[in-house]
């Protein structure tokens, strides 16, 4: 890759990185519909749906939980993220830098980059399960932590190496393939659901005459409720609702999508996120969960959550292709984003080398099936980790002036590390972890009180911190 290629790639992704978006660059509503629908129908959906079934979810809890949780996620984008994004029109990182200072943003980048690596690792794991169908090696089980066969190790390394090299060389090409594949992938997911449903109907010669019969099939055979599989947490309506609300917490409440909505002409365009939620996090999760429920129906002892075999049983080679493309096209930008996050820490390093190293870390993470098999917990942890900074941005924009405090304090006082924001982050995480550890609150729920803790802490800490540093103001 030439330096010119690097700079072209970088400039296309970091356009208007340190300035307000000009009017000529604003985008229409349709752009956001396409972007959200494509981005949220990914390889990991093939893990999450089955993991709901493994968690012993009931039909009503699943459907109602997803309907409400996804609605709350859309509302979070509409009322928390987009209003700030369309008013300030800055990237998340630039806005954070103005609030927190460069050094604290570097720390945030590091945390973000590491989480991106693990997420990409889970996506590599998903893609590698498709190779298992072709080459018939032993694949990991639901409760496996470590790789359990040499075939698995080789498959993950091959998939990870290809994804990493492509991410380093040709981000644009893969982004284009992802755009082309997105409508196809959405329909393949829908086909998974229809095929799985028919397989269930035929399995016990069920007679479906009306919607009532279908609902009976759903609650008695597909999502039966009851005890979770060994090693899994029992999922109720509340678990499903909070999970679907918070699984993209880093993006809405955590404010990552400020970088997206800075391009929106109107803040209500955030309603486009519903396309992603109800296609990817409703239809795709339900479809994937039907495939896994059918596997358990055929053989209750076969608890392995392996998207490759699941998809192959339903749709043959198209299913396998869907697993590979879904994992690949989402792991690729994730590795690239992680590379960018790490490069921000070492700006002089080559993005090419950093992306390759990042891909290597993601591949190493992908070797361990525990990340993918515990994806529900990991996603909740990811949201929780970045949530406090979202609260800091929210309070900084809406409340600081009302309390006679300075917004964008780091920029105004020319400091590199805003301790009020830093301590808010660390203390909120410590509080959340203590609540999980000692108060018995599960990780799926703890981010809600955590957001209020972070908001209150940032106001209180800023009051003391800004008072002592008023002499620095320019």
């Amino acid at each position, binding site marked *: 890759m030439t330096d010119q290629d690097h700079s072209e790639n970088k400039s296309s992704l970091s356009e208007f990185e340190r300035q307000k978006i000009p009017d000529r660059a604003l985008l229409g509503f349709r752009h956001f519909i396409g972007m959200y629908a494509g981005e949220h129908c990914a390889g990991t959906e093939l893990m999450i749906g089955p993991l709901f079934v493994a968690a012993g979810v009931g039909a009503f809890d699943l459907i109602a939980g997803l309907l409400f949780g996804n609605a709350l996620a859309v509302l979070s984008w509409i009322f928390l993220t987009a209003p700030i994004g369309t008013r300030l029109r800055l990237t998340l990182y630039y806005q954070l830098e103005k609030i927190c200072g460069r050094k604290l943003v570097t720390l945030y980048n590091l945390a973000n980059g590491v989480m991106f690596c693990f997420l990409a690792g889970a996506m590599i794991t998903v893609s590698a399960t498709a190779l298992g169908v072709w080459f018939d090696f032993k694949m990991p089980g639901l409760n496996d932590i470590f790789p359990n066969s040499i075939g698995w190790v080789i498959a993950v390394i091959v998939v990870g190496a290809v994804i990493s090299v492509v991410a380093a060389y040709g981000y644009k090409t893969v982004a284009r393939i992802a755009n*082309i594949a997105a409508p*196809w992938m959405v329909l393949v997911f*829908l*086909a998974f659901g*229809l095929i799985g449903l028919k397989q269930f109907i035929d399995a016990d010669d069920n007679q479906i005459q009306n919607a009532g019969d279908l609902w009976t099939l759903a609650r008695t055979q597909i999502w039966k409720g009851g005890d979770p599989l060994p090693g899994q947490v029992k999922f109720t309506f509340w678990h499903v609702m909070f999970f679907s609300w918070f699984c993209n917490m880093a993006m809405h409440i955590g404010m990552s999508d400020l970088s997206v909505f800075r391009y929106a002409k109107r803040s209500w365009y955030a309603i486009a996120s519903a396309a992603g939620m109800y296609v990817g996090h409703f239809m795709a999760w339900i479809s994937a969960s039907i495939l896994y429920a059918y596997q358990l129906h055929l053989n209750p002892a076969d608890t392995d959550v392996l998207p490759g075999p699941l998809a192959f049983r339903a*749709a*043959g080679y198209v299913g396998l292709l869907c697993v590979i493309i879904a994992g690949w096209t989402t792991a690729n930008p994730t590795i690239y984003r992680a590379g960018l996050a790490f490069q921000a820490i070492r700006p002089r390093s080559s993005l090419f080398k950093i992306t390759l190293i990042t891909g290597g870390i993601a591949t190493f993470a992908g070797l361990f099936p525990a990340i993918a098999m515990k994806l529900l917990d990991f996603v909740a942890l990811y949201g929780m980790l970045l949530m406090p900074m979202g609260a800091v941005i929210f309070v900084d924009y809406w409340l600081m002036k009302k309390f006679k405090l300075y917004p964008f304090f780091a920029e105004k006082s020319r400091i590199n590390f805003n301790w009020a924001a830093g301590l808010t982050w660390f203390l909120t995480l410590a509080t959340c972890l203590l609540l999980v550890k000692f108060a018995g609150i599960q990780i799926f729920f703890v981010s809600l009180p955590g957001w209020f803790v972070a908001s209150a802490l940032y106001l209180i800490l800023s009051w003391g911190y800004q008072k002592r540093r008023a002499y620095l103001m320019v």
Partner: protein
Amino acid sequence: MKNVLRKTAGIIGLVSLIILLLPSALFLFGDLSLEQVKWMMLGATLLWFVCAPFGMRER
């Protein structure tokens, strides 16, 4: 000419997406076997990936 090609590829792409989904719906109603569904989906997939790059507008 380029425009005509793009529009034709776009229409064929759209048809391929319909062919992709239709067999699974017909399978649900018992009108096709699963093997037939898998082959039709494979054909539709090939058609989509051949046509879509020409049919989709550059953004």
